[in-house]
């Protein structure tokens, strides 16, 4: 007998959430199904209008698309148009209390993109650009997905088949339901209530603020660099300032983030020293989004799978890269293998677990960066090495590339960890951190 969990011509997939994960899933599921001569019916449920300004049209993040994701998407044939990218980034500047250092892209290209997830900051000034989430959703639609702007409010099992409800009405009984709901809404309840053991990811609160000033001031003060801060501010693990059109996105990650954290950050001596003095700047848009810091243990069951932020994602960086990896891993499993719990366990779970394991290395690396915040001597020696590497064209730039990969999300934490171990100064800190 044919496996009832294998998708056939005409099988229906409901994708709940049309953020990056939902769109990546749909794009790849449709592409791969076509490759093996199957037609799938994919419906994406997404009530948010990504062309709207401010938090209501936005999936709230720093909007940095990592070098790895930019390049991988290009190889996939998804090139980010100039109408979408706010600014191409070719470097980082890392600040601590004891100085700062500049790290350029190894290839001297603009390899990182900054985007807006929605229509832009509240009351956006100047000409807006396309929204990243909208761009991906449109791509999914052009591959053949149907976008339905409904919010799903309940899913029930009926003979091991998921049944979707919206506004109290039964709307679809698909062969597969994909939860790409992120962590920023209460939709996790829907999947918790299905009773197969899903529990929402553990989260911390982060802060994002958009500061507006003239676009010439942005270029002058921020250039094509992301500015990264490892400063001893209470509750702040690290912060980034990401230049876009006429705005700079301030993104603060940490433990006890509150509304006031942004003001404390902007009042910090080091931060103040790089902000325009004569230009006026204004905080235009702010939010306190949740961030996934620990993945759920059970992210799937028969005909149900959760991915992206609602599942496992990379710790503190490259969440969009993880949305691509996990959305695609779910699509591959569903199309090439099947949609039973066993199929997901065998094909999807190894990818899911790899991210979880890698985050453990990430935790150690972030503990090291914490050490950098306070150790003056350590800072000085690191700055010296990096500066020398950056000035010497022939240098191997080992430390620069470790830092570059750490902050751009270019490499697995595991690989960065391995490379960093070659540096005696890191080795000593690792030992210290592990003892703690």
């Amino acid at each position, binding site marked *: 007998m044919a496996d009832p969990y294998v998708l056939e011509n005409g099988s229906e997939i409901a994708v709940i959430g049309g953020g990056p994960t939902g769109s990546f899933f749909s794009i790849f599921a449709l592409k791969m199904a076509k490759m093996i001569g199957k037609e799938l019916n994919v419906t994406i449920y997404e009530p948010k209008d990504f062309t709207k300004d401010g938090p209501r049209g936005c999936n709230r993040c720093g909007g940095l698309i990592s070098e790895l994701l930019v390049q*991988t998407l290009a190889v996939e044939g998804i090139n980010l148009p100039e109408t979408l990218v*706010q600014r*191409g980034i070719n470097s980082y500047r890392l600040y601590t209390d004891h100085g700062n250092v500049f790290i350029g892209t*190894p*290839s001297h*290209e*603009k390899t990182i993109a900054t985007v807006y997830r929605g229509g832009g900051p509240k009351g956006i000034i100047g000409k807006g650009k396309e929204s990243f989430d909208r761009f991906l959703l449109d791509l999914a639609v052009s591959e053949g997905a149907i976008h339905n702007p409904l919010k799903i409010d309940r899913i029930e099992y009926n003979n091991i088949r998921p049944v979707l409800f919206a506004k109290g009405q039964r709307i679809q009984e698909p062969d597969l339901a994909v939860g790409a709901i992120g962590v920023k809404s209460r939709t996790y309840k829907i999947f918790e209530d299905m009773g197969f053991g899903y529990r929402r990811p553990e989260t911390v609160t982060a802060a994002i603020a958009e500061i507006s000033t003239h676009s010439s001031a942005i270029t002058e003060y921020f250039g094509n660099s992301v500015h990264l801060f490892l400063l001893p501010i209470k509750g702040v693990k690290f912060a980034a300032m990401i230049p876009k059109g006429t705005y700079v996105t301030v993104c603060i990650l940490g433990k006890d983030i509150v509304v006031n954290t942004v003001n404390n950050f902007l009042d910090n001596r080091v931060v103040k020293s790089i902000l325009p003095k004569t230009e006026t700047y204004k905080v235009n848009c702010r939010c306190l989004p949740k961030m996934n810091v620990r993945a759920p243990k059970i992210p799937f069951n028969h005909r149900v799978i959760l991915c992206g932020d609602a599942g496992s994602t990379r710790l503190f960086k490259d969440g969009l890269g993880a949305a691509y*990896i996990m959305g695609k*891993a779910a699509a591959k499993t569903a199309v090439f293998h099947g949609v039973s719990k066993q199929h997901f366990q065998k094909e999807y779970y190894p990818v899911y677990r790899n991210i979880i394991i890698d985050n453990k290395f990430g935790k150690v690396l972030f503990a090291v960066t914490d050490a950098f915040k306070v150790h003056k001597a350590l800072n000085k020696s690191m700055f010296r090495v990096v500066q020398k590497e950056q000035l010497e064209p022939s240098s191997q730039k080992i430390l620069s590339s470790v830092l570059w990969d750490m902050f751009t999300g270019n490499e697995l934490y595991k690989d960065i960890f391995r490379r960093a171990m070659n540096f005696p100064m890191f080795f000593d800190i690792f030992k210290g951190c592990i003892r703690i």
Partner: protein
Amino acid sequence: MKDGELGRVYGEGEFIFKEGDEGDRMYVIQSGRVRITKKTPSGDITIATLGSGEIFGEMALFDRLPRSATAGALDEARILSIDKKKLFQTIDRDPTLVFKTLESMSRRIRRLDEEFTKLRKSKIDILQIFVNVDETCSFILEEAKNFIKADNGSIMLYSDEEKALLIKAAFGTEWNPKTKLNAGEGIAGDVLKTGRAELINNVSMDPRYKKGSADINSVLCVPIKGRNTHFGVINMSRISENLFTIEDLNLLRFIALYASIAIENAMNFSRLRNVADEVLMHATMLDMLG
């Protein structure tokens, strides 16, 4: 470079890599065009012009050989490069990443297959033409027509058997395929005899002129010279007021030079074939007799 652009901008004519370089990255065009060229003994030839979204430079990554061609920006082009090591690491994690690259390579191979088939076909066509005297004459006349505008034209060859000039190929209305001219007869016959190329305007005034079906005005007549003798002529004529020039005459003389080589080769070949056929026939007969 504009704020929202990714990659690196290459100016018009700037090289991205050169044939023979070592290849450690592949490229994806974000905007503009890139020309791929290859060195040949008779100069560089363009093998492809690529545009936005297309991948290039991937071959050296997969076969680990030096760059097989040169890539240069045709106009201003913006290009994203992808490091080999990072790419292979990513492919190792997700082998389906090569689907798109395979698709683009397959498309390229398919196009090459088509071009190769076309090339082979035209080579075979040319070979077939050049062993047949009549077809060689038609081919030469077609080519001549491309260079020199004329209303009528013909190639006539002297037949030893008929002791006359016979038409081998012609276009326009002036030439009757049955026309036969003895050596010295008409303009063509005279040119064959003297071996001098002629440009004659106001041809009706020329006493050698034998009126045909059209009122022609200007005539070019060039002998086709063999190693020892003249064995034919190329004629071209115009009805209109637009007269031939001395440049036209020189051009036709040039064409006639090449024509003579090609036609002699074709004649030799058919003679050879006749001889070979005869030998074969004798051999067969001997075989039958034996």
